[in-house]
């Protein structure tokens, strides 16, 4: 078991109800596959630096969790199929810091 951070970049033209569905879907996935969710952050609608798949803006959702290899494989499988997500990034950490939130002011 080790700590991970997962950020999802979702499409610009999604309604609010679907964003919450994505949030629930991945938080349930982590909890059901021998993982433990620690924190969820919503960074909101941000400007992209360059165009990605013809989109200028995107929604950002950030997960902090503890898990094993099984949880990671499950998440990667689901992201590949999901059409509403443009990009994602998973980073491994030794110690998570839950205090600093860099995108809180820009909301």
């Amino acid at each position, binding site marked *: 078991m080790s700590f991970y951070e997962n*950020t999802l*970049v979702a499409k610009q033209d999604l309604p609010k109800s679907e964003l919450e569905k994505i949030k629930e879907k991945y938080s349930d996935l982590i909890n059901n596959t021998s993982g433990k969710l620690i924190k969820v952050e919503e960074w909101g609608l*941000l400007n*992209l*630096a*360059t165009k*990605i798949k013809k989109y200028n803006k*995107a929604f*950002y959702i950030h997960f902090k969790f503890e898990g094993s290899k099984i949880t990671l494989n499950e998440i990667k499988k689901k992201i590949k199929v999901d059409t509403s997500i443009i*990009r994602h*990034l998973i*980073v491994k950490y030794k110690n998570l*810091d839950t205090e*600093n939130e*860099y*995108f809180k002011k820009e909301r």
Partner: protein
Amino acid sequence: MKRKSKKFLKKNTSSLSKLSLFQKSDGKFNRTCPLSVKNAPIIDYKNISLLKKYISENNKILSSKITSVSSGKQKKLTKEIKKAKILGLI
């Protein structure tokens, strides 16, 4: 009046000591690393305001010769900048 004239002379001598343009200047460029001081900011791909200082106008990573970052921190910086570029933050 006398004092003023003395100052003027001193300045003149300093500029005269440099004989040619190709002589090395006396100014020191060896500054200390700004990221390995006490209470230094955390290098992370979410901390965009810090990462933007170490990027040129064309989104290229600046070399450590210009910014005087230590070699260990420069390796960390490049990794975090590349992560931020994947997400489209920079």
